[in-house]
């Protein structure tokens, strides 16, 4: 089913069930976001993706990452009201996280260079988008990270702010973090996931059966084993590092094809 809608004074057709943000990005319109990620569901905390709607909906400001498109919807992503509101939001976010270079750059792109509000005493480079917490909870299912405290004290942390017992060392949080506040490094035979405030988890790395290179924590491999089918390829190459697994997989495939 397609719906007829107006986007920035242009009549367009869009598939039903998509959000305004998804449709606008497909049309090549730039809407800034912090908390939106393709892999995760809508969250709507950063509020930066606001647009002005009218027509089928009551005229006003809506968050485009949550609002679905509908027939007869009129959307304006660059009206003066949107820009003014968004600048205000940038000021609030800058007051929350004045130390994040990524946020400062994004704000500068939208013409905001300083905040009129009381700035938080924060130096962890975190913008509180919640992507790491959500990916750990919703996609990985490890529940290692959470938001603790509130207001200016709100921060991403592990349970009881000590080394997490739930963390499996997959590193998804470090990868998804838009500002690099969570980092992961493999040092020798140890993997450390850490933020500026402290270490999230430490792991001994297992070594590859073929080349002997340390490549993944045991807990992570157990997690993969538990959550995957016996017939899946990941179980065939379980004790191999990614490079050796690729090579073995290719040999298996070619071997099967030639025989």
């Amino acid at each position, binding site marked *: 089913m397609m719906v007829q809608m107006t986007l920035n004074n242009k009549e367009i057709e869009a598939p039903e069930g998509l959000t305004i943000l998804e449709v606008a990005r497909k049309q090549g319109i730039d809407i800034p976001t912090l908390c939106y990620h393709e892999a995760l569901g809508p969250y709507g905390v950063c509020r930066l993706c606001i647009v002005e709607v009218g027509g089928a909906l009551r005229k006003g400001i809506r968050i485009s990452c949550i609002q679905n498109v509908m027939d007869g919807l009129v959307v304006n992503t660059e009206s003066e009201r949107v820009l003014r509101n968004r600048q205000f939001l940038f000021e609030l976010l800058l007051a929350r996280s004045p130390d994040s270079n990524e946020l400062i750059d994004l704000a500068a792109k939208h013409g905001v260079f300083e905040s009129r509000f009381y700035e938080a005493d924060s130096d962890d480079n975190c913008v509180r988008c919640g992507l790491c917490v959500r990916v750990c909870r919703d996609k990985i299912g490890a529940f290692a990270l959470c938001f603790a405290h509130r207001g200016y004290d709100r921060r991403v942390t592990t*349970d009881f702010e000590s080394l997490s017992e*739930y963390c499996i060392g997959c590193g998804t949080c470090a990868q998804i973090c838009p500002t690099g506040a969570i980092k992961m490094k493999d040092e020798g035979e140890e993997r450390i996931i850490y933020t500026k405030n402290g270490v999230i988890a430490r792991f001994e790395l297992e070594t590859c059966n073929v080349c002997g290179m340390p490549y993944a924590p045991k807990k992570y491999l157990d997690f993969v084993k538990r959550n995957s089918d016996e017939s899946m390829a990941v179980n065939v190459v379980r004790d191999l590092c990614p490079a050796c697994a690729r090579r073995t997989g290719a040999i298996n495939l070619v071997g099967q094809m030639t025989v």
Partner: protein
Amino acid sequence: MRKTNGCNKSGGPNDSVVHLFLSSKIDLKGKNIMEKEKIEKIVNKHRHEKSAILAILHEVQAEDNQLNTESLRYIALLLGVPYSNVYGLATFYSAFSTAKRGKTLVRACDGISCHINGSEEIIEVLKSKLNIELGQTTWDEAIGLEKVRCLGLCSISPNVSFNDKTYSNLNKEKIIEILQKVTGDSK
């Protein structure tokens, strides 16, 4: 019969999926915390329902004047929710405290009406009389002092509440009198 969401009636820790990967089980021995049985009783009262977690935390807080790490871990294990969820909840609400609170919690209101009517002076008196700063507890763990935003009694401000009892229309002399009465009672 009311439907419960996968609770276990035995009262032992709920061995749900989230806790399978725990490297260590908690040890409650030798720690200065509430007894396991008391927590189990409260959790059983709420039929191990995950949705009752706030009520459970309130009751444990009232019983023990704190929600320390071991209590929170045990509640999480009994309910089968991740530690991180329980910790997030317990630190979010100001009704809970992860550090030991005084038996009597003095909440001095510093909302707009109270502020205009001189709550600052009252807070200063409280601080000097109790000899503690805001957010601290006296050495004998009898009285804790906190500043709150509004107690909803603006028309008879300034207000200070001692646990559940609220005193209104205060001034310097009145608060000293009340404080003497309360400290005399609690000792």
